């Protein structure tokens, strides 16, 4: 009776599994938040920065986006240690995901801002708004609506990318599941179970995104 065995084992390991799920959510949430803040800065630098700053931001996003997340994870865990910044696994993992997230958010922000017709800026200037006012009241609200779907997508990517932190020993969901499997040999069942949990987290993110999108949609 394999199913019964699976349920027994899963129930017995419920604390470990929920802790793993909690770590996955925590790592993702922190990385998404910090990555978004940093990414907005990167996006602004890409769009409005003076030339050296823009080049710097361009180099950063291209380099990070062209690097596998796994390499970023190894780099922040092992390579930073060699230059004296010895981060524990959790912090190293959050750093890698934050950097990864910021490069994607940066591009999303740049794309959204550049997609706004120049007439919007001109109309704002024509009624005497300064650039800061134009940005705050005219550009940002329009860009935010544009950003939302892509940002939700990136958030879901971050949850999936967080599985890579199992390799440096962060006790997130996948690592906990692998530990269970090595004890119980119920690999198919537990991998499937893990898949269901990841799906649930990302489905919740996606539903939330849809909800915000609906709430902020402009009447036509």
């Amino acid at each position, binding site marked *: 009776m394999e199913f019964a065995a699976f349920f027994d084992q899963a129930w017995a390991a419920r604390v470990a599994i929920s802790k793993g799920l909690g770590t996955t959510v925590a790592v993702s949430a922190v990385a998404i938040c910090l990555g978004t803040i940093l990414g907005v800065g990167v996006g602004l630098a890409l769009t409005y920065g003076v030339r050296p700053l823009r080049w710097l931001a361009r180099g950063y996003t291209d380099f990070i986006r062209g690097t596998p997340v796994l390499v970023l994870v190894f780099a922040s865990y092992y390579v930073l240690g060699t230059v004296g910044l010895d981060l524990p696994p959790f912090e190293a993992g959050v750093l890698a995901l934050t950097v990864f997230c910021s490069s994607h958010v940066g591009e999303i922000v740049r794309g959204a801002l550049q997609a706004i017709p120049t007439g919007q800026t*001109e109309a704002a200037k024509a*009624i*005497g708004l300064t650039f800061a006012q134009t940005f705050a*009241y005219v550009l940002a609200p*329009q860009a935010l609506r544009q950003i939302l779907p892509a940002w939700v997508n990136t958030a879901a990517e971050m949850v999936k990318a967080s599985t890579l932190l199992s390799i440096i020993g962060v006790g997130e969901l996948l690592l906990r599941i692998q530990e269970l499997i090595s004890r119980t040999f119920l690999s198919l069942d537990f991998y499937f179970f893990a898949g269901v949990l990841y799906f649930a987290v990302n489905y919740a993110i996606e539903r939330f995104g849809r909800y915000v999108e609906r709430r902020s949609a402009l009447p036509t």
Partner: protein
Amino acid sequence: MSDYLLEICNLHKSFGAVEVLKGVDCLMRAGEVISVIGSSGSGKTTMLRCINMLEDFQDGSIRIDGEDIGYEVLGDARRRKKESEIARQRALTGMAFQQFNLFPHMSAIDNVMLGLVKAKRLTREAARAVAERWLDRVGLRDRAGHYPGQLSGGQQQRVAIARAIAMNPKLMLFDEVTSALDPELVSEVLQVIKGLAADGMSMLIVTHEMRFAYEVSTRVIFMNQGRIGEEGDPREMFNRPRTERLAEFLKSSPFTK
């Protein structure tokens, strides 16, 4: 204090190597309604956009009520003014655009109120009162809560005009405001502008509507290849063009009602 509301002196503007304005001079008194006509690429729109510094210009000067717009000239040196100063000067003029450029995420009344609250620093209540008055004036009081996406082109353009004029500018600039409209929506916008002209509002109107230019203007300027080709009383100009170029242009621009 100057005799003139607007003084354009030897205005030069280039886009890269292409010189679009090759020395434009124009004097305008308060209360005048000047239509600017001419073929595409003659520099009409560019001249308008220089007046509120949507375009930088390389040489010459523009004054509104004696105040130098955009640049300070000290001896031989010419320096662009601070961005905050330019923002203030832009509010001396109001501008209506060909593509309306309403803010799509704001209702009609919020579009009109934004400049009043943020640039003029009126309270929201005071701004709302001004905005309601102008929306009423353009016949859209009952559309105050509508978003641009819910309005027709003609209605959007009227909101855009209300948004510009609510700022109480000294001079209104109209940049081909009916060119993007369906033919049956043109007249509702032109009626609004005629009403403003009747109020004595100073206006500079770039337009392709020849009959409208004829009826509403106190003076017409014909732009030709970056210069003023001819100017004068609308009746004189349309009936007895002095230059070959204007005669040709008028022949190819149907005088439709």
